[in-house]
């Protein structure tokens, strides 16, 4: 049955992709106006996503027997490519739109040099388009291509400052990304060899437990973990994220890493679902605990503001890994995990933007010498602290709701009789404490006595946007019901 809502949805998804690609192409061809195109586009895309989300929610659970699938060029799978929209994809599209709008506005102030601007905006718009395409892609090989668009633009943006540290970080990031892509592609090829299709829904229908699925699962997950810097392969993250320009760090830690995580989740809820066993879950969970401890320890000893934030990304993604064993015991826990990832992305982007403002004002971001600027720029410190509070999960913030729900799921596994569940509960609770410690490290100097300095003047964008995004991150706690409801509209998932 075809509701009018569904026709809107299919054109809406294709239109969103077309719009974001159009912006990228226009900015490429017309770099002198790229920043204007970018801002107008960011507003247009946000409006579009808002309408799309409203139509999606309005279409309601009824057409949700299957996800909205859009055949490109009217060629249905297996011949053609399908876009794929469900509650999970919709949530991440909305997240991307919000973070991207904030980043775009911030970049107006941050990338002010005329020549830099012409290089920055086209790359950034391609990255954004790549992320949008990643979230709605429904085809294994197309996922590889969109991953490459995201990787190449992200690497170029990391290298953007042109310093030795940045270029070296970018080089490392590129090698890791290319290795991850090839590993992913090899997995796709294996799946194609076994089943002869590339469409994810068709693959899911044909998947069974066999050598191909096992090997493909290992290759694709390992490749995505390399890209997401999930624990055992996290080493590249801090140099890349820490030395990139602030808006780029925000997008990398907030969105690009989330994109890889999204794919891992999608694949394991779909094609590889038959392979998920409790032992596997425990293994991943242990990796998560290790990431949490290692990342927090590094964040507690790092000397630079942006390094602290970068390492905290490693730690926070430990949480996402801890969620895997919880999901095996309590299938609906994945929604909480995605909600956590959403809150984390908002808060992390806000923290990076605030750090960028402070760095701009001070001319450096060495924590020991930053006290005077921190005391002089309380608005930014407030943004930093507010987003940080959300990261550590104090009450009445998005982070609190997410961590509370995670804890609840963890306790559920303990009650279900899983002894190792205790470890997950301790890790989730303890991770919050560690986060509190490193967030305090960042803002504490603001409360010390000492010289007060405002440093270099910053534009209004750089002053206010971090605060706005931090408020959004904190308020995300209030939207928990909405996000969780949207996520529940994911057919095929528990």
């Amino acid at each position, binding site marked *: 049955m075809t509701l009018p809502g569904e026709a809107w949805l299919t054109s809406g998804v294709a239109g969103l992709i077309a719009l974001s690609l159009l912006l990228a192409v226009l900015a490429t061809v017309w770099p002198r106006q790229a920043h204007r195109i970018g801002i107008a586009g960011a507003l247009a895309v946000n409006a579009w996503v808002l309408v799309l989300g409203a139509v999606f929610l309005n279409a309601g659970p009824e057409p949700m027997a299957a996800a909205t699938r859009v055949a490109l060029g009217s060629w249905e799978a297996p011949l053609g490519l399908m876009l794929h929209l469900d509650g999970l994809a919709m949530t991440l599209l909305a997240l991307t739109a919000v973070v991207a709008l904030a980043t775009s506005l911030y970049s107006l102030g941050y990338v002010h040099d005329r020549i830099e601007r012409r290089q920055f905006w086209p790359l950034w718009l391609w990255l954004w388009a790549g992320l949008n395409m990643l979230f709605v892609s429904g085809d294994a090989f197309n996922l590889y291509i969109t991953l490459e668009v995201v990787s190449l633009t992200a690497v170029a943006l990391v290298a953007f400052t042109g310093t030795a540290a940045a270029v070296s970080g970018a080089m490392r990031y590129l090698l890791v990304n290319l290795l991850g892509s090839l590993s992913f592609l090899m997995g796709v090829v294996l799946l194609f060899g076994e*089943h002869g299709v590339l469409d994810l829904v068709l693959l899911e229908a044909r998947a069974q437990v*066999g050598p191909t699925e096992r090997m493909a699962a290992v290759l694709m997950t390992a490749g995505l973990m390399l890209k997401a810097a999930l624990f055992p392969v996290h080493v590249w993250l801090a140099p890349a994220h820490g030395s990139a320009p602030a808006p780029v760090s925000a997008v990398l830690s907030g969105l690009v890493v989330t994109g890889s995580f999204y794919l891992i989740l999608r694949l394991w809820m779909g094609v590889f679902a038959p392979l998920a066993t409790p032992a596997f879950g425990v293994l991943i969970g242990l990796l998560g605990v290790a990431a949490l401890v290692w990342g927090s320890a590094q964040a507690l000893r790092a000397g630079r503001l942006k390094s602290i934030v970068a390492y905290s990304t490693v730690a926070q993604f430990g949480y996402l890994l801890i969620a895997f064993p919880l999901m095996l015991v309590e299938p609906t826990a994945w929604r909480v995990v995605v909600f956590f990832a959403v809150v984390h992305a908002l808060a992390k982007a806000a923290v990076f933007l605030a750090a960028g403002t402070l760095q701009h004002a001070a001319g450096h971001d060495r924590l020991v010498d930053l006290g005077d600027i921190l005391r002089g720029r309380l608005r930014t410190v407030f943004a930093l602290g507010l987003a940080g509070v959300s990261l550590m999960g104090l009450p009445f913030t998005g982070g609190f709701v997410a961590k509370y729900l995670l804890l609840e799921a963890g306790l559920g596994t303990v009650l279900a009789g899983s002894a190792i569940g205790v470890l997950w509960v301790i890790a989730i609770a303890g991770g919050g404490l560690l986060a509190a410690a490193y967030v305090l490290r960042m803002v504490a100097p603001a409360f010390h006595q000492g010289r007060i300095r405002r440093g270099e003047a910053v534009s209004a964008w750089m002053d206010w946007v971090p605060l706005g995004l931090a408020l959004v991150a904190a308020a995300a706690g209030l939207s928990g019901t909405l996000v969780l409801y949207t996520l529940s509209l994911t057919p095929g998932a528990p």
Partner: protein
Amino acid sequence: MNLLLVVFDLALLAGLIGVAWRCLASTDLFRAVVLFITFGLLLALAWVRLEAPDIALAEAAIGAGITGALLLVTLERLRVIIAGRRSDRPDTVPPDPSGPGAALQALHDPPPEPRTRLPALTFALVVGSLLVTTLWHQPDAAGLEPVVDAHMDASGVDHPITAVLLNFRAYDTFLELAIVLVALLGAWSLGRHDRIPARPAPGPILPGTLRLLVPVAVVTGVYVLWAGSHQPGGAFQAGAILGAAGILLVLSRPRRMPPPPGTLLRLGLGAGVGLFLASGVYGLLAGHGFLGYPPGWDYPLIILIEVAATLSIALTLVALFIAGRPEGDDRP
């Protein structure tokens, strides 16, 4: 006859693996690059054997040709940079040639430390053997060939690969064009271009040959593009051939060529994605789906997109060879 083919296959694979091994084990980078180019040409042979003439053409032109040119010019650049640093600041050269700074010895990579050999070997062996085991377990024939064959009539072209690339999976192809462009945007964001460190050989022979070869390359490129609708060939191969011709021109610098105006250059680079996207958006608005073609218009639109894509690819490849952005791009 079959036995002969098996012998041929085994010899070819052994050659490929051997060349790849020698390439990666080489301490001299120039040698490694030459071996890599050889590897690309052998690969093209393997693709012919696997009945993939399109891929063979692309591999020879792109994989071996363009990549080879990019690698060689990079080595030359590295050599100039490192030699320049050495003469500028002799103190930056570490005294110990076997230390980690030994890469300063221009194009030389010291043999890897023995202690990483065992773990790396174990890891690679595990990955390789798992892959081989998996592949040997796979069924014999699973593919989309029958589906493509059944839809060829509706595709607007006669060559299945072109139908897949420009019609059935046009979205992938669009993104592929985008990636070529994005790689260039990335390279341009790293800085302005410098002079290409290559000197044309004196004498009339090289310019003479180029005068002969470049027009032939242009004709070949156009032919390959046109052939793509009904036999092996197409935009990417044609773009690579034209790009190679452009690289030859840039390398030999017969006369000082004026830099192209910035706007025109950007338009040329974006023509492929721009036209593709415009056609795709029209398809969306007219109700044929994003990147769909109106009935009856598929053949002309595919040809038009391919022409623009060829031009853009050729321009982009030349620009990637030059690497930095042109000075005109920074003018107000």
